[in-house]
């Protein structure tokens, strides 16, 4: 591909650093004067923030002096500078408490990635061809400003749109203000893993449109419905830290985890009981448990308050959800549901949580409301050991809830499809819908219609490859960062970090570019974006925290600002997990709804469950070599995709381990090798999300298959979220395939492997 050739040529100066026994000195490279004072061999630890998932963990980066090959003022040379060598969790940070997940550890490879964009680029060939030429920043910003100038003084709803990943903190603020300054309401936040369903359910049940924080550490009984909280859901590290406590952190007390999910996710693998319920029936199970608790007078139905009232039939005792009645539908013996219900009631505090595929069915909202009602019934909401909500940050512009993108991605696409002239200029930032949205949505064709696209991302991916202009952001370790994590802590948290190292390449902080552009726009923009740099913006925004009861005592604003940087943020010292509302709900109670699936069961006999993979998450981390080579915890697969299929099902279809199989929905098909496992329901096929990139650095390009591509464009009823668990597929063997597995035998007793 020409794109790759270009990148190869532009990395000519880079080549590879191979272990050369003889060593060959770089003859031609001059040495630049160091920009910082450095003592060789001495490490300093600088706070930073992990931005790779929704968790928002606080980190410490180990920075040591080293020599980097950099380009300064167009000249290649060696520069002695502080280099981040290792990332660890910040022990004082309330979210992760000194721990870091494998993805966080791999953040270093973003900064040092060989294919990271090093300077602004302008498209020089047809769109999508990957032909770019390097340009300077002045030219790039001038071009942007000229593209934007029609909008600032225009009428309502200009042709400007900003497509980003979900943003928090002042970044969200600036993007919001910027978009508004350009007379646009089109700020779209896109992510494959979005938590809108859970937020809506929490809003309805508890008055908080926010993801839950799970006080697992003090819980005795946890019922999880599809929420892979130990791996990729919500705030994985915070939840893992608490999980460890729950298991063995309290002398003589060990909590129990029960997990309902059609496949064994990592969380299911750690559960004391894993029960494979039929896809989409999680809400029924939750209500079945609630029924037992109510009917056996273990707790009173009114304890559930507004959350209970959100379910039709709650006050009637939920007779239609008795385990014996729903047994067949959910595929779990009634006796087990009853037992779990009794155990939960007897082992307080008990909590329930929903996420993952359970919330990504067409009836996901119903499922979530059902689980919330169960939670409330168990009496744990807002209490120790239960479901709590991270308090809002005092004294600052409120958190992302209000600043959320005002336009949904689906609606955005529809607008362009119905009126190709609706959007003239599109800014991209860390969103990759061409990869992470189903092919049936035709994202690429739709975005093609937009005359001018600019990207601020650090990499060429499927979506940014369509850009006309690229203005690469710094990597996170080189940036001023802030974060306001909406869950994972009982305290309000504002993370803050100064850059841990100087920029390696000729990149610029995206917020700074926006602020720069803002100054070139009219007076309205200047009013809403008065700051020169991002740190100035953050200092202004968070200065008010000084007066709040928190982790920092300071003598003045400057002192506070410095201490906030040194500690990696500010957090309140009050545990103020908000209490749920108990008034009646304004929305009418939800009826049970059965899940709808795309494709009829006779033609498409299997449920298709894509899942966020531990290493590549939603695909955004497939470009990191450590994430490609780290074995997947369940399959041990590396550098590729696999399809999880039940061992017995595979035998019936004549499929053996690593055989290439075709998985086809009504909207497309893909091929990948089969991984046989007993730990998945016989009528379910699962695939990790992450691979199948057509264009995403040398490590991920043309590797594996992307399950998102064949998903049906179903929506979670009552929301705008993609119901990504609602597709049905058929499966057939195509031929021999290849799995790169690190591990071998599946069972611990070797005598059972005879004759294999």
């Amino acid at each position, binding site marked *: 591909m020409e794109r790759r050739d270009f990148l190869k040529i532009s990395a000519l100066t880079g*080549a*590879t*650093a*191979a272990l050369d*026994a003889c060593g060959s000195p770089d003859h031609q490279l001059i040495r630049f004067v160091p920009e910082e004072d450095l003592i060789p061999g001495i490490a300093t630890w600088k706070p930073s923030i992990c931005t790779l998932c929704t968790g928002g963990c606080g980190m410490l980066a180990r920075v040591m002096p*080293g020599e980097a*090959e950099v380009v300064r003022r167009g000249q290649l040379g060696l520069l002695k500078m502080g*280099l*981040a060598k*290792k990332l*660890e*969790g910040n022990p004082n940070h309330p979210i992760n408490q000194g*721990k*870091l997940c*494998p993805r966080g*550890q791999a953040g270093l*490879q973003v*900064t*040092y990635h060989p294919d990271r964009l090093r300077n602004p680029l302008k498209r020089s060939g047809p769109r999508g061809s990957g032909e770019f030429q390097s340009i300077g920043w002045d030219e790039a910003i001038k071009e942007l400003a000229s593209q934007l100038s029609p909008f600032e003084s225009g009428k309502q709803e200009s042709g400007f749109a900003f497509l980003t990943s979900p943003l928090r903190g002042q970044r969200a603020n600036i993007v919001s203000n910027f978009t508004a300054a350009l007379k646009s309401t089109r700020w779209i936040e896109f992510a494959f893993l979005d938590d809108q369903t859970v937020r809506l359910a929490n809003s309805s049940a508890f008055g908080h449109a926010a993801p839950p924080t799970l006080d697992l550490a003090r819980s*005795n009984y946890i019922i999880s419905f599809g929420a892979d909280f*130990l*791996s990729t859901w919500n705030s994985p*590290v915070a939840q*893992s830290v608490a*999980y*460890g*406590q729950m*298991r*063995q952190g309290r002398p003589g007390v060990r*909590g*129990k985890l029960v997990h309902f999910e059609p496949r*064994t996710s*990592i969380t299911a*693998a750690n559960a004391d009981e*894993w029960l494979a319920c039929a896809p989409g029936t999680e809400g029924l199970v939750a209500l079945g448990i609630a029924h037992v608790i109510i009917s056996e007078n273990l707790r009173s139905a009114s304890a559930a308050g507004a959350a209970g009232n959100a379910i039709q039939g709650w006050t009637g005792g939920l007779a239609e959800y008795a385990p014996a009645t729903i047994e067949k539908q959910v595929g779990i013996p009634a006796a087990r549901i009853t037992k779990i219900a009794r*155990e939960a009631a*007897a*082992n307080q505090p008990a909590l329930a949580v929903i996420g993952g595929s359970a919330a990504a069915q067409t009836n996901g909202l119903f499922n979530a409301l059902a689980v919330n009602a169960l939670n409330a019934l168990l009496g744990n909401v807002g209490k120790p050991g239960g479901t709590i909500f991270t308090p809002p940050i005092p004294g600052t512009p409120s958190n992302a809830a209000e600043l959320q993108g005002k336009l949904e991605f689906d609606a955005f696409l529809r607008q362009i499809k119905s009126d190709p002239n609706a959007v003239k200029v599109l800014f991209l930032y860390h969103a990759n819908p061409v990869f992470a949205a189903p092919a049936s949505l035709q994202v690429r064709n739709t975005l093609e219609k937009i005359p001018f696209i600019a990207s601020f991302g650090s990499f060429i991916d499927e979506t940014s490859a369509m850009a006309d202009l690229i203005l690469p952001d710094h990597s996170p370790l080189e940036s001023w960062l802030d974060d306001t994590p909406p869950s994972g802590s009982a305290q309000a948290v504002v993370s803050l970090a100064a850059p841990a190292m100087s920029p390696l390449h000729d990149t610029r902080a995206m917020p700074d570019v926006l602020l720069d552009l803002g100054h070139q726009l009219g007076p309205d923009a200047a009013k809403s974006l008065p700051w020169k740099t991002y740190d100035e913006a953050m200092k202004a925004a968070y200065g008010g925290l000084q007066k709040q009861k928190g982790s920092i005592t300071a003598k003045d604003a400057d002192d506070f600002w410095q201490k906030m940087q040194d500690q990696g943020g500010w957090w309140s010292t009050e545990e103020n997990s908000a209490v749920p509302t108990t008034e009646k709900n304004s929305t009418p109670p939800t009826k049970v709804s059965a899940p709808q699936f795309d494709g009829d069961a006779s033609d498409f006999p299997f449920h298709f469950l894509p899942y966020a993979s531990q*290493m590549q998450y939603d695909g955004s981390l497939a470009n990191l*070599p450590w994430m*490609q080579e*780290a*074995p997947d*915890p*369940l399959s*041990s697969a590396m*550098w590729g995709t696999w399809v999880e299929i*039940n061992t017995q099902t595979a035998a019936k279809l004549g499929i053996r381990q690593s055989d290439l199989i075709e998985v086809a929905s009504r909207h497309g098909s893909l091929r990948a090798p089969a991984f046989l*496992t*007993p730990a*998945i*329901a*016989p009528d379910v096929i699962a695939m990790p999300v992450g691979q199948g990139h057509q264009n995403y650095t040398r490590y991920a390009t043309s*590797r594996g298959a992307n399950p998102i591509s064949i998903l049906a464009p179903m929506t979670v009823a009552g929301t705008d979220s993609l119901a990504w668990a609602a597709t049905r597929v058929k499966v057939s063997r195509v031929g021999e395939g290849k799995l*790169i597995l*690190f*591990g071998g035998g*599946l*069972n*611990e007793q070797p005598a059972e492997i005879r004759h294999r």
Partner: protein
Amino acid sequence: MAHQWGMVIDLDRCTGCEACVVACHAENNISTVGADQAARGRAKHWIRVERYYEGEFPDVKTKFMPVLCQQCGNAPCEPVCPTFASYHTQEGLNGQIYNRCIGTRYCANACPYNVRFFNFYNPVWDKPLNLQLNPDVSLREVGIMEKCTFCVQRIKAAEIQAQSEKRDVKDGEIQPACVQSCTTRAMVFGDLNDPESEVSRLARSHRATRLLDELGTAPKVTYLQRDSWHDGQDV
């Protein structure tokens, strides 16, 4: 008394997340071998998380077990190395002297835990990934065997620091990369010669077992088996 470094891994806490695996790569300059070489069995994961299934659907239980060099007290890899590249240190570690290794790979065959990894080629880092390399850990060339060292560079650094401050190393002061990153605090590291250290205390648990104990390797890693749940109402 000299330290005897040991580790406890609580399998009831371990979730199989593999933070330890990636943290180890980052700390110890372990090169990525790429898809082709990984397919040929050359990937080097000094610590790995073994995953086992028990039972048939629908009653399947999954077990995770992180396996790293057990720093055996009676290591089978030590007598067989013809050049003393594999040797036992005074602090109970199985040391690997990279520049003494001639690459017979006998030690890897003798190791019952399969925790030794070989450099089949010279390792390569696509620039500028090499800037991430830890200056405290040597790079290994082709033909050299490598394995977990309990992050001996961190142990040495802490001991030197303690010595310069005229004190002893405190319990919990040394954390190998895996232990430090482990999200559930499943891994604990410390001095087995100190009966009050956390690692000693945990090693005395009723759930304590050792991997392949019956082979007589005297491993320094103690595994705490998964605990069972007791219904509160039965109490």
